[in-house]
């Protein structure tokens, strides 16, 4: 039996909240550098250059990469042989968020009630998912999810006969509709199958993969590749001002589904693509 104190969880979540908002993912930096070389639009190139400059300034901890420091989404993988001591895991995650957003001078963007809209004041609660597995693993994958991109997400219950082309058309239509709003170049997350909620959850989770990592299933990996190419032919470009860099990656996840259905959810991430894995 492995024992973990909630204090270790609080500390790790706090640090992750801060670092992912100030230090850009090295894979994103690399993608910016590559995009700068291939982009054809002069405005697009100047935008990518500014994003690189922005990341350099944020890295010095003067200000976060983006003022929308997001709502925290946490995917917990909990081994059945792990004993979490001194409190509840969810409370510890929320306490880590609370401390991280205060100490990191991050914007508190969460309202306690979606209708009454009073700010909770500490960016809690996080959206938390649990996956209980064998063994003594304890991991939390965290995303700091901004809503410029979240607002451009869409779900659709396709017919089984819509098949692969139906899925791809829906993704393209969603990205086209989103246009400049989600801060392109974007990362496109796609959840296919399960139920409507499962599709949304795996779409979100796909955004946490290392940038550009392919799905293990060959037909899905091929779909990701084709979609990336097609999306970058839409002309949207950096910030929607034209160009060939509209998406940096397309990530898709699948889950078994019902004979009568083909749920699809598209969840979009902005170019900051902030996420971090914590292992205890």
């Amino acid at each position, binding site marked *: 039996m492995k024992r973990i104190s909630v204090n270790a969880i609080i500390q790790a979540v706090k640090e992750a909240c801060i670092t992912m908002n100030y230090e850009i993912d090295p894979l994103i930096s690399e993608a910016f550098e590559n995009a700068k070389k291939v982009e054809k639009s002069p*405005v697009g190139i100047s935008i990518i250059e500014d994003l690189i400059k922005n990341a350099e300034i*944020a890295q010095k901890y003067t200000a976060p990469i983006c003022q929308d420091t997001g709502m925290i989404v946490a995917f917990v993988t909990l081994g059945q042989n792990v004993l979490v001591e001194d409190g509840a895991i969810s409370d510890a995650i929320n306490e880590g968020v609370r401390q991280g957003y205060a100490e990191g001078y991050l*914007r508190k963007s969460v309202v306690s009630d979606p209708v009454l809209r009073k700010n909770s004041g500490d960016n809690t609660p996080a959206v938390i998912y649990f996956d209980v597995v064998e063994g003594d693993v304890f991991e939390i994958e965290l995303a700091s999810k901004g809503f*410029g991109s979240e607002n451009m997400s869409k779900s659709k219950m396709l017919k089984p006969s819509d098949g692969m082309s139906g899925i791809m058309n829906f993704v393209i239509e969603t990205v086209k509709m989103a*246009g400049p709003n989600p801060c392109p170049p974007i990362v496109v997350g796609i959840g296919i199958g399960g139920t409507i909620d499962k599709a949304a959850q795996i779409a979100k989770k796909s955004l946490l993969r290392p940038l550009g990592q392919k799905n293990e299933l060959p037909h899905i990996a091929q779909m990701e590749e084709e979609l990336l190419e097609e999306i970058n032919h839409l002309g949207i470009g950096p910030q929607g001002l034209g160009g060939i860099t509209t998406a940096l990656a397309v990530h898709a996840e699948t889950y078994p589904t019902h004979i009568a259905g083909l749920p699809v959810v598209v969840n979009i991430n902005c170019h900051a693509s902030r996420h971090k894995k914590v292992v205890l």
Partner: protein
Amino acid sequence: MDKILINTPLNDEKCKSLKAGDQVLISGEIYTARDAAHLKLVNLIRNNEALPMDFNGQIIYYAGPSPARPGAVIGACGPTTSYRMDDLTDPLLEKGLKGMIGKGDREEKVIDSMKKHTAIYFAAIGGAGALIASTIKSNTVVAFEELGPEALRRLEVVDFPAIVVIDSEGNNLYETEPDKYKK
């Protein structure tokens, strides 16, 4: 591309000279207001109550900064997506607002009102919050302090980078540019 230096406040003549595609560096005072502050401002206008400031010739920046670190003027301060303010824009243009800075396309009714009132819509780079913060020299809450990041703030900026995306004739880069790179 050479960047055009502009100073606030703006007037009709200046607005008419700016064309979609112009890259500009803005200096002077601009004002932040986003979702909640717009609702409050428009409610004041609808109720014929006094506004907390005169918008004549001014620029509103759709932004809600992150908190300033000790000794810093402001935290990250990039633009938020503008379409959420589309239903609340015309009354401010009626009050003499000359410019808006945000990101993303606007509805036709906003563009029509911009043409009528000779106003400009600029885009700042979404997600360049740290870079933009470095051009902000002072930050004062003018009204609605209770809204926290959504308060109405006066920012003094020097060479704030933006692009004219919709000009006062209604020319719109979001409409014209993507087609050039479509395959």
